[in-house]
C-alpha cells in the first residue's frame, strides 16, 4: 500500500537574493518530493515570486543554490524551464484568441504540434465546452483553468503556480484545486505561492515566508501543533473592549484580539473555560458564550511573528 519515499524533486540550499541593500530572499533551504504540493505562504513582497524566478533559472541567486528536477538552477536553467510549467499572476493570455488557439500557440512555443495533446489538455482542465470561446469572454474561473492548461500543455513533471486563484470565487477555487490534486496524484510536483491563509490549508506542506525568510515549513497540522502552544477560543462578551483589556492583562492569555463581534484568544493549556470566566467576571463584563475552535494558519503566523 505504502510505497518507497519519493525522491527529492527540488533541493534548495541557502538560496539568497539581494537587490542592493534589500534582501528579498534570505538563506532559504528546503526540499520538495515528487507528487508533493508545497505551499509557499506569505504576504505580498515577502519574497515568494523572487524565489520562483530563481528556481526557474530566470534570476541568478546572490548566494546559495538549488537543484530542480536534478538540474542546477545556474548552469542548466534551460533544462529546468523545458521540463517545468509556470503559471504566473500576470500571465499573458491572448484575449482575442480562442481557448484552443491560445493552447495551440503556447504548445508551439514548446514544440508541441500534436493536436491530440492540445485536445487532451483541453479535457484535462475541463474546458471542452469552451474551446471555441474567445478568451476575453471567459469568467475569472475559466480563464484561470486556461492559464493552467497553458502551463501543462508540454506535460511538465513540475508545476510552479504563482498566486493562481486570486480573485476567483470559492467554487472555482475548489474546482481548480481538484485539478491540482489530480495532477499530484499522477506524480506531478506542485509548488504554489499564496498570500491567502485559507488556501495554504489545501497544500500537503506549507512554508511560511516573511521578509525574505522562511520561518517554518511543515504540514498544516504539524505547524499548528508546534507553533500554537495553547488552546484557541472564540469568546462573546459585552462590552467587548473592556473584556479585551482585561484579557490582555490576564495571566495565561498568550494572545487576544478583536474579531468582529467576538474575541479570539489563545490560552495557555489548563486555563480553559473556567479560568476565562473567572477573569471576565472579575472585570465585571457580561460573559455570553465561549467556543473552543481549531487553530488557523493565521494563528501560526501570528505566533511565529511574535517569537522573532
Amino acid at each position, binding site marked *: 500500500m*505504502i510505497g518507497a519515499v519519493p525522491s527529492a524533486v527540488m533541493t534548495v540550499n541557502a538560496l539568497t537574493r539581494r537587490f542592493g541593500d534589500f534582501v528579498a530572499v534570505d538563506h532559504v533551504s528546503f526540499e520538495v518530493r515528487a507528487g508533493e504540493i508545497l505551499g509557499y505562504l506569505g504576504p505580498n513582497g515577502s519574497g515568494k515570486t523572487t524565489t520562483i524566478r530563481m528556481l526557474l533559472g530566470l534570476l541568478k541567486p546572490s548566494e546559495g543554490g538549488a537543484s530542480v528536477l536534478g538540474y542546477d538552477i545556474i548552469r542548466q536553467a534551460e533544462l529546468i524551464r523545458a521540463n517545468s510549467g509556470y503559471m504566473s499572476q500576470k500571465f499573458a493570455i491572448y484575449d482575442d484568441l480562442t481557448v484552443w488557439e491560445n493552447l495551440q500557440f503556447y504548445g508551439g512555443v514548446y514544440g508541441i504540434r500534436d493536436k491530440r495533446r492540445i485536445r487532451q489538455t483541453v479535457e484535462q482542465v475541463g474546458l471542452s465546452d469552451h474551446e471555441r470561446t474567445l478568451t476575453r469572454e471567459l469568467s*475569472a*474561473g475559466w480563464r484561470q483553468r486556461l492559464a493552467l492548461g497553458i502551463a501543462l500543455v508540454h506535460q511538465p513533471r513540475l508545476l510552479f503556480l504563482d498566486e493562481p486563484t486570486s480573485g476567483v470565487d470559492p467554487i472555482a477555487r475548489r474546482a481548480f484545486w481538484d485539478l491540482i490534486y489530480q495532477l499530484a496524484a499522477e506524480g506531478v510536483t506542485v509548488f504554489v505561492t499564496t498570500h491567502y491563509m485559507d488556501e495554504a490549508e489545501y497544500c500537503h506542506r506549507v512554508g511560511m515566508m516573511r521578509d525574505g525568510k522562511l520561518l517554518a515549513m511543515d504540514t498544516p497540522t504539524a505547524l499548528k501543533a508546534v507553533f500554537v502552544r495553547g488552546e484557541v477560543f472564540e469568546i462573546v462578551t459585552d462590552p467587548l473592549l473592556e473584556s479585551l483589556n482585561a484579557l490582555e492583562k490576564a495571566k495565561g492569555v498568550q494572545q487576544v484580539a478583536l*474579531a468582529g463581534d467576538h474575541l479570539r484568544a489563545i490560552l495557555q493549556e489548563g486555563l480553559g473555560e473556567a479560568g476565562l470566566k473567572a477573569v471576565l467576571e472579575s472585570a465585571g463584563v457580561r460573559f455570553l458564550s465561549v467556543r473552543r475552535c481549531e487553530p488557523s494558519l493565521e494563528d501560526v503566523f501570528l505566533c511565529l511573528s511574535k517569537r522573532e
Partner: protein
Amino acid sequence: MNEILIRAEALWKRFGGVAAVDGVSLQVRAGEIYGLVGSDGAGKTTTLRLLIGAIKPEAGNAFLGGFRLDRQADKARAVTGYLSQRFSLYEDLTVLENIRFFAEVRGMRQNEWYPRCMEILEFVGLAQFRQRRAGQLSGGMKQKLGLASALVTRPRVLLLDEPTTGVDPVTRQDFWQLIIRLAASHDDGEGIGVLVTTPYMDEAVRCHRIGFMRKGRLIAEGTPAALRERFKDTILELQGSPLAWLKELAASHPLVKDVRSFGDRLHLRLAEGDASAATVSLEMEKAVWAGGGEFKGAKAVPPTLEDVFMALAEAEE
C-alpha cells in the same frame, strides 16, 4: 436599534447587457461592520462604486448617513470616508502633510485639521512617524496612513475596498483591531457604519454581518454564526495515508455525500449529524487498517464560511 448609516435599496446597474448589480438591498447600522463577499466580477466593487456615487445606478437608491445620494450628494459625501484598494498617497510628502492635504481638500479649517490629524495619527499608531516621508513607510504603515486620511473628517460611514488583501497577518490583525474599535466608538458615542468588500473568507469572518454576492445578486446575508447554522451537514475531518486511496475509500461510503482533499487531511461531508460522524469514523478506521493504510484520526469540525458559501451557491445553480 442603532441608526441606519448605509442603505442600498434595490440598486441595479448594467454593463453591456449584463446586470453587474442586480437588485442589491442592504443596510448597515451604527457600530456595525458589514462584509460584502464575492469573487472578482460578482458585483461587490460595482456596489461599492454605486454607494460612493462614482457611478449612477439605473434603478434604486443609496443613502449614506441618512442622505440620499442622488439628491444630497454633498452631504452624503461629507459624512463618508473611503479607502480604495489602490489608495494613492504622495510619496514625497510626509505623513502629516499627506493627511493635511486630505483634510484641506475636504474643507477642514486650519484650526480644525491639526488637532484632528494628531488625534487620528495617534489612533492608527503613526504619531511618531508624522515627519517621515510616505515613500519611506512600510506597506502596513501606508495602509494605516490611508485609513487615517479617510478618517480625518470624522466620517460616520466608512467604505473599504479589500483593505487587507495581500498584507501580512500581523499588519492585518492591527488594521482590523482599528476598524473594530472605530465601529464600536465614535465621537458622538454611537459608532460608525463600515462596509468592507473582500473576496476572502478569512477577512469576512471578522465582520459582524456578511452578505454573499454572486453574479450581481446578494444570495445570503447574516452574522457569521447564523450563516454557519444554515449549513446542516456534518464535516468529518480524516487524517491518514496514503491520502489518494483514503479519498477513494471515503467516497465509496454510503453516508458520505462528498469528499474534499484539504492538504494533509480529507473533509468528508456527511448528511445526518453527529451519529453518522461516529459511524463513518469507526468504519473508516477499520477499513483503512484492513487495507494496509494508516489511520491517524477523525473528528467532526465546524463548517467554514467557505463551506457555507459553496453550499448556498450550489443550491442556487
